[in-house]
Each structure stands twice: as C-alpha cells, then as structure tokens.
C-alpha cells in the first residue's frame, strides 16, 4: 500500500566476479568467438550466489612462465594461454552482504570448479569533480525535473514554507539571476544569537546558491532565511557554525510549524552542511557523541521536528571516494550524524548527465545504513554565487534542488494528506535506479523522477477521492 511505510530491508548485496574452471569443452566454447556460451552453460547454480544471466562468460587466459620459471609469480616474462586445458572462465553475480565472508570462504570448498571470488566494483569514467567546469545550466535542471509538468498540476511551491539553513540569503542576487521575484518571509526568518544581518540581505555566498537552487522547482515557495553557519560563538569561524546553533534553529522552526493550521501544514528544511571531522566530536561510543548517536540532542530534535510534520533534507556530503573534499577527515562512512538520520532524506549528487559526481559521499550512513536516500542534480551553472563561470556544486546544490521538488509536491499535498515518511517513501520508490540492483551506496534508490512522482500522486488522489 502506497501510504504505508514498509520497513527498510537490512541487507544489501555485493557484486562479485567468480572465476571457474569448468570442463575443457566448456572452456573451449567460451573462448570460441563463434560460439555464444551463457552463464547457465558455465555455472548452473552456485550456492548463495545470484548469477547474472545477462553477463556473457569471459575466458581468462592462464599466465604461463618460461620453462623453469616460478609458477606463482607475475614478475617475470610470461605467455598467456587460452587453450581449453589452461584457461578459466569468469561469470558475474551477487552475494548477500551478511553472507559474504562465509560464501567467499566456502564456495571453493563446496565446488571444486570455483577458482576464486573477486569484488566487482562500479567503474565510471570521467566523473565530475570539484574544480571542473559546470555541466549544463539550471534550465537543464528545470527540464530534468520536469518543472513545466509540475506547474501544470499546480505544484509550484505556493504557500509552502521552505527554510534554508546556511550562510544567509541575498535575495536581490537570487532574483536577478532567476529573472523573477522571490518570496521571503522576514517574520519567520531567524538569526542565531550574535548574528546581526537582516533576512535576505546577507552577503552573496553559499546560502544564496542554496536559495536559488530551491526555487528551480518551487519558484512560489516562501523562503525562510536561517543563517546558522554565520555563528559568532567561540569555536566558530567566518563561515561555519556550531551544532548547538542548529539545535536552536530547529527549535525556532518547530514554532513556525506549529503555528500553521494542522490541515495545511508543511515546512521543508534544506540543510547543505555537516561536520567534516571527528576531531570536534566525542569518540564513537561516548554518550555525548554526535556522529553515531541517535540520542544526541540535535538528532533528537531532528526526529521530533520530522514527527511534527517537517520534511528535513540533508546533503550527503562531499567525501565521495573518487574526489573527496580536502576537509573530509572521517576515515570511512562519512555520512554522519543528522546527515544520516533515518527521519531525513540524505541527498547525493549527480550531474545533468545523470552520473554521480565523484565527490558525492557514499554510504552506508552512521545512524541509518541505507544512505544516501536519493540523488538530485548538482554542478550546473545556476546562481553564479561564486562567480560567473563557477557552478552551483557539491551535494550542497543537490540538496536544495531536491528540497524544491519536495516543496513543489507540498503545494497540494500537505502533511495531513502525505506524511513526511510517506513522502520519503514516494521519492525513494519512484527514483530512477542507476545501478540496476535497487538500492546502492552510490546513488541510494536512484535519481529523483518527477514523472514517476506525479503518476503516483495521481493514483493516490484517485484512491482518496
């Protein structure tokens, strides 16, 4: 049932390559370019392995040392033999994560034709990285988000409050580069103690980029400016803040949410920030720890606000293995703290070609394993907040792009009709799966897919009617 929230499966699979030494006639068939052998011909059922029938088995030549050479060393002159008696065959499959080590150990003992089991990591060419030129512009993002279709259904963010927790918004810059006015609610905006700027009048910086990106899908949303990263408290610097300021900001946003009539309540909260380093945290296991501790006050207030009806989105972070940000200091599992909270949408980044940007952080998350949840668009020419040729980049841009889509949906689907948990499920379930295996730690459930969302909402509306 669409409205229910199914429990998340706790398992994942690992893609593997399995090297086999079947009978010589099978090896000969695989090695023969005129014969098409299938996976079933080579390995019909390996215990605990889901074989990929779409993968054509590949013959692997055997390295043969010169006479008298070391049979175990590759550091010598070698020839390679594809003869049926020498060669082996490679097939592809998946093994459940929870059985991985057992299966990898047992397979060669259960089946004497199994030579070895190897990882089959995702390989991608030319991933977009920090410092690269923009890939497309914000009009491409509009097209990819099917903004015209959203607006045709009245989903443009009208009446929806969208809080941007960041470095503050420069509304004039956003309006100039969008080519249209924006709605900013100064009354409901809020500054941390000691921050003196006025809503919508902050210097052009990261927060201005985020505000611009929310308005791509939801141009009529009402922005709430929360410059939480301008904290002047001891321990902070010019463009960072302290988590305690985010606690206070979320407490303010609860008053915003609870002041709304229950039947039309909606509040989207976009957070393109996080903690880069465990250096500022208590160690994992300490009761005061933040990164891995759902009982930390900030993780509690996130849960509390989500339960009250807020849609909370966090950027997954820029610590992807392929080209991580230089500030990343977690040795592994960089999606930490609230960025990995089970009650939020953790947003990874893809470029306008639909390919994961190399810096987008990979899961598993620290509070919930299945992170990121979904991906949205980044690294495009948009707000020009960092200069004319500079892209809106980082998962910092992907998060507000996704927040804009959520705000657009909320135009006609308030929390009374679609809870935050139901909306998260809807976005995950309709996402365009980029890996062909369902959830994965690079793309999550996939890239947001507006036509899928709209089709699902239409079905839901008919059921409700």
């Amino acid at each position, binding site marked *: 049932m669409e409205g229910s929230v199914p429990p998340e499966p706790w398992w994942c699979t690992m893609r593997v390559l399995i090297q086999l030494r079947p009978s010589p006639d099978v090896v000969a068939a695989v090695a023969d370019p005129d014969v098409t052998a299938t996976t079933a011909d080579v390995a019909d059922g390996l215990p605990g392995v889901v074989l990929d029938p779409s993968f054509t088995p590949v013959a692997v030549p055997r390295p043969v040392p010169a006479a008298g050479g070391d049979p175990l060393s590759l550091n010598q002159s070698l020839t390679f033999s594809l003869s049926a008696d020498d060669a082996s065959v490679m097939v592809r499959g998946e093994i459940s994560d929870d059985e991985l080590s057992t299966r990898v150990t047992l397979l060669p003992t259960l089946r004497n034709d199994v030579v070895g089991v190897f990882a089959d990591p995702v390989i991608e060419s030319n991933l977009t990285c920090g410092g690269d030129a923009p890939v497309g512009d914000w009009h491409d993002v509009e097209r990819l988000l099917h903004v015209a279709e959203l607006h045709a259904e009245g989903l443009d963010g009208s009446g929806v409050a969208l809080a941007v927790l960041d470095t503050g918004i420069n509304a004039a810059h956003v309006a100039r580069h969008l080519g249209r006015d924006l709605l900013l609610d100064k009354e409901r905006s809020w500054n941390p*103690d000691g921050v003196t700027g006025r809503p919508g009048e902050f210097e052009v910086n990261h927060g201005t980029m985020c505000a611009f990106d929310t308005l791509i899908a939801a141009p009529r949303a009402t922005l709430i400016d929360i410059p939480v990263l301008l904290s002047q408290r001891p321990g*902070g610097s010019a463009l960072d803040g302290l*988590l305690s300021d*985010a606690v206070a900001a979320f*407490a303010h946003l609860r008053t915003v949410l609870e002041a709304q009539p229950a039947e039309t309540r909606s509040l989207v909260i976009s957070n*393109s920030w*996080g903690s880069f380093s465990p250096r500022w945290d208590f160690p994992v296991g300490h009761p005061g720890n933040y990164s891995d501790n759902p009982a930390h*006050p900030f993780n509690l207030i996130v849960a509390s606000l989500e339960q009250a009806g807020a849609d909370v989105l966090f*950027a997954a972070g820029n610590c992807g293995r392929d080209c991580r940000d230089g500030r990343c200091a977690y040795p592994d599992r960089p999606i930490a703290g609230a960025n990995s909270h089970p009650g939020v949408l953790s947003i990874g980044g893809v470029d306008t070609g639909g390919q994961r940007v190399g810096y987008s952080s990979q899961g598993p998350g620290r509070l919930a394993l299945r992170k990121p949840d979904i991906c949205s668009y980044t690294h495009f020419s948009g707000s020009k907040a960092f200069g004319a040729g500079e892209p809106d980049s*980082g998962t910092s841009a992907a998060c507000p792009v996704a927040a804009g889509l959520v705000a657009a949906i909320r135009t006609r689907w308030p929390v009374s009709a679609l809870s935050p948990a139901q909306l998260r499920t809807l976005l995950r379930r309709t996402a365009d799966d980029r890996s062909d295996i369902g959830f994965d730690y690079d793309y999550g459930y996939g890239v947001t897919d507006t036509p899928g969302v709209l089709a699902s909402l239409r079905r839901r509306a008919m059921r409700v009617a």
Partner: protein
Amino acid sequence: MRLVTVRLHSQATLAQAMRRLGLTEEEVDSGYGLVLIDPGQGLYGLRVAEEAARRIDPAAGGGPYSDPRIEPFGPPD
C-alpha cells in the same frame, strides 16, 4: 561551552533550568538561552561552561554532548 540537557515541564525558563542543574549565571550562555528539544519528553538544551557541565548530577541533566563545528558542503575543495 558544552551542550547539556534537562527535563522540565512545558514553558520552562532558563532560570528554572539553572536551579535544577545548580548553575550560576556566569556558567550559562544566556544569549543561547533554553532551547526546547522534544516537547513530548519535556527535554530542553542549554550551553554551559565546561567545568559546570562536568559537575552536573546525572540524575538532574544529560550530557555533556559534543557541539562540533558545522560547515557548508560546497563548493568542494
């Protein structure tokens, strides 16, 4: 300064939190104030001096909790 928590009734004040935790004005970040974390549990947060946080009776309050720096995720360096 450290982040600590205290359980109080609804509409609680900073003064009430200070009394419950045995804190003086000099030990509390009054600009930060008393922040409602979870109304369902009557859970509030406040920032106090490190020495005072260590002194708090666990039966009266929770913490100290880490208060890490938070930074924007972009542009990537």
